[in-house]
């Protein structure tokens, strides 16, 4: 696509060219490489002192879950240009879907694997239900409606305690199992890690494929100019609903995984802060760039859960007068705020901008050559 970056490194050009042709394979290799490298890195000095490898792997698993959420939200925001502030709702619905059919609370115990798909379907249905009434809205108005939806879902789950066990949530959710091969337990984080890495790979491949398809182009079109899109024959209603449905179905699938990982769902897990942190990840990573937003989510999660915790223990250990009374974990929202403001001011295209956005913000040096 982009002709600009090609001259920078000629040494890896054949490798790059190969993976450009076989992108799915490239994603598999890349994610696998990172998936293996990350646990290895935690054995290296500065990291091994912070927490055990198992705890690290657990943190990586949750970070990868956030990365998948960010990729899903990126479809709605980055591809189709529809600002969605209630994304955590679909995450919640996926989680509760699995909790209803795989916990002692209801007494039903369905297997995990088909429920992954069911979570996606439930997410998609609610995505369409949210999408349908908001079709005429754009920008701020859409944001407010989605924000409302994001609040309605956890509050409904909390208040209808006859069905959802209220604030206590549903606990004792079944872990996934591959009989005879792997037993998923709370103590051993590795099977879950492998599952999440595999799922992340699959979702990433599918998103890349969708982005390049006829459907992905309709999202580009409605993001750029709705009237022009209609005049190109795009049914913008269908395109928008598809964006909502695909984004929400990813959140639904991830919600199932998350519920199985934590073995508990409570309404509190899905408050507004989740939507905002995923949004922050999308903005940080660079709207429209799937790999970028996944990385952004990974970084944000690890930052808030490892670094802030570290600062906490550090100031406590040294017993610094004022600082030791501050809980730095509470600072994560300040952090989001700072990140969002700084990004918008200094680098609106994100840390890892989509190749297209990168060109948008570049000075127009290619124009001359193109003109004649």
């Amino acid at each position, binding site marked *: *696509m982009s002709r600009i970056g090609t001259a920078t490194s000629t040494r890896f050009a054949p490798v790059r060219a190969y993976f450009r042709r076989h992108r799915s394979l490239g994603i598999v290799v890349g994610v696998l490489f990172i998936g293996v490298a990350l646990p290895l890195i935690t054995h290296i000095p500065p990291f091994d002192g912070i927490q055990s490898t198992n705890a690290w792997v657990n943190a990586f698993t949750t970070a990868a879950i956030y990365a998948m959420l960010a990729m899903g939200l990126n479809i709605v925001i980055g591809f189709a240009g529809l600002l969605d502030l209630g994304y955590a709702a679909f995450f919640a619905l996926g989680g509760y879907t699995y909790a209803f059919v795989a916990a002692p609370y209801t007494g039903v115990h369905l297997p995990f694997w088909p429920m992954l798909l069911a979570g996606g379907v439930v997410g998609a249905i609610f995505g369409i239900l949210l999408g349908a009434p908001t079709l005429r809205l754009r920008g701020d108005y859409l944001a407010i409606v989605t924000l409302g939806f994001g609040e309605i879902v956890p509050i409904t789950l909390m208040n209808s305690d006859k069905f959802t066990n209220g604030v206590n949530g549903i606990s004792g959710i079944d872990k996934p199992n591959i009989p005879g091969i792997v037993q998923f337990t709370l103590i051993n984080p590795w099977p879950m890690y492998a599952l999440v890495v595999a799922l992340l790979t699959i979702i990433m491949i599918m998103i890349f494929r969708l982005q390049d*398809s006829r459907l992905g182009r309709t999202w*580009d079109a409605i993001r750029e100019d709705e*009237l022009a899109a*209609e*005049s190109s*024959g*795009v049914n913008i209603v269908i395109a928008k609903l598809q964006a909502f449905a695909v984004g929400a179905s990813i959140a639904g699938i991830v919600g199932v995984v998350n519920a199985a990982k934590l073995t508990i769902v409570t309404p509190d897990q899905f408050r507004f802060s989740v939507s905002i942190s995923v949004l922050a990840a999308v903005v940080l990573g660079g709207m429209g760039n799937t790999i970028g937003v996944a990385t952004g989510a990974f970084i944000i999660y690890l930052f808030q859960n490892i670094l802030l915790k570290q600062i906490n223990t550090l100031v406590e250990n040294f017993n610094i007068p004022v600082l030791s009374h501050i809980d730095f974990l509470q600072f994560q929202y300040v952090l989001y705020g700072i990140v969002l403001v700084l990004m918008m001011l200094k680098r609106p295209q994100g840390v890892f901008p989509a190749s297209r*956005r990168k060109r948008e913000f570049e000075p127009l040096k290619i124009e001359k050559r193109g003109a004649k």
Partner: protein
Amino acid sequence: MSAAKGGPMLKARGVTRKFGGLVAVNSVDFEIPRGSISAIIGPNGAGKTTFFNVIAGIYAPTSGTIELDGEPLISPPTGSGREPILLVLPTIPFIGLAIYFMLAVGGNTGLVEGVASVAIALLGFVGALLLNIVRPAWYNRLIKRIGVTRPARPNDMVVAGLARTFQNIRLYKSLTTLENILIGMHVHMHGTFFGALFKTRQVREEEAAAEQRARELLAFVDLARMENELAKNLPYGKQRLLEIARAIASRPKLLLLDEPAAGMNPKETEEMTALIRRIRDELGITVLLIEHDMRVVMGISDHITVLDHGEKIAEGLPKEIRTNPKVIEAYLGRGAAAGH
């Protein structure tokens, strides 16, 4: 696109469009001969753009009908009262079932089934409501059969074979020229969601063919070497060309051009005129344009329609229009017409 059918390409009958009390277009009869280049002209505020937007499906007409290539394309909405029936229809058997379970079976045995039936009925209702909003092509055909016509949307027009450009260029600015064209080809591609997901052979072949054709179209408007440029980085004149190429990409029968030569220098105008001719001659597309530049209009049009105050005041060949006293009066005022 050879003349399989006879008759005019576009036929408008009594098209009226009111905005509140203002009659923007008043009962205009209008025909575009097949394979012609036609123009609508008129002083500012004459209702040209409104008429154009009615044809393009952006405004529904208040009254009147428009036929494209013999097919009724646009008419004022009718029979809207019948559509709610479609919403209720799928829920009826389930509601009946629910009542049966609750009454006939009785007691607790019927309750679960009853609730389930109501839930299914609700789902059916939501599904029908969604169809109503989404309006896929087959749904449009279905409601037409029971006598409901809805205001057509611009995307329905494109499917019917009508493409347009805009007065103030509306490209997908931060997409490349090639991608702009590919979106223009949307209606002729059939890749589905799952096809894209699993990258089926059909989808891969279709994508390759589409890219090939998009390159040809870029070459047709002389943008061949710019397929990777962002649309907004193109010079103004090239942006106009790209927009036309995007419109042609949907393989229209009729191409609507809204002031194609606006803001162009004489050389660019000349190129544009030549391009419009080539579109008609080489691609066999009938062209309708709105234009202020009289040199363009008089130079390429086979057929000119003059609107003033929402009404058609003249139509005919360029040389007839040029000497028509009504037209001169509309443009220059009564005195000028008398002195001519």
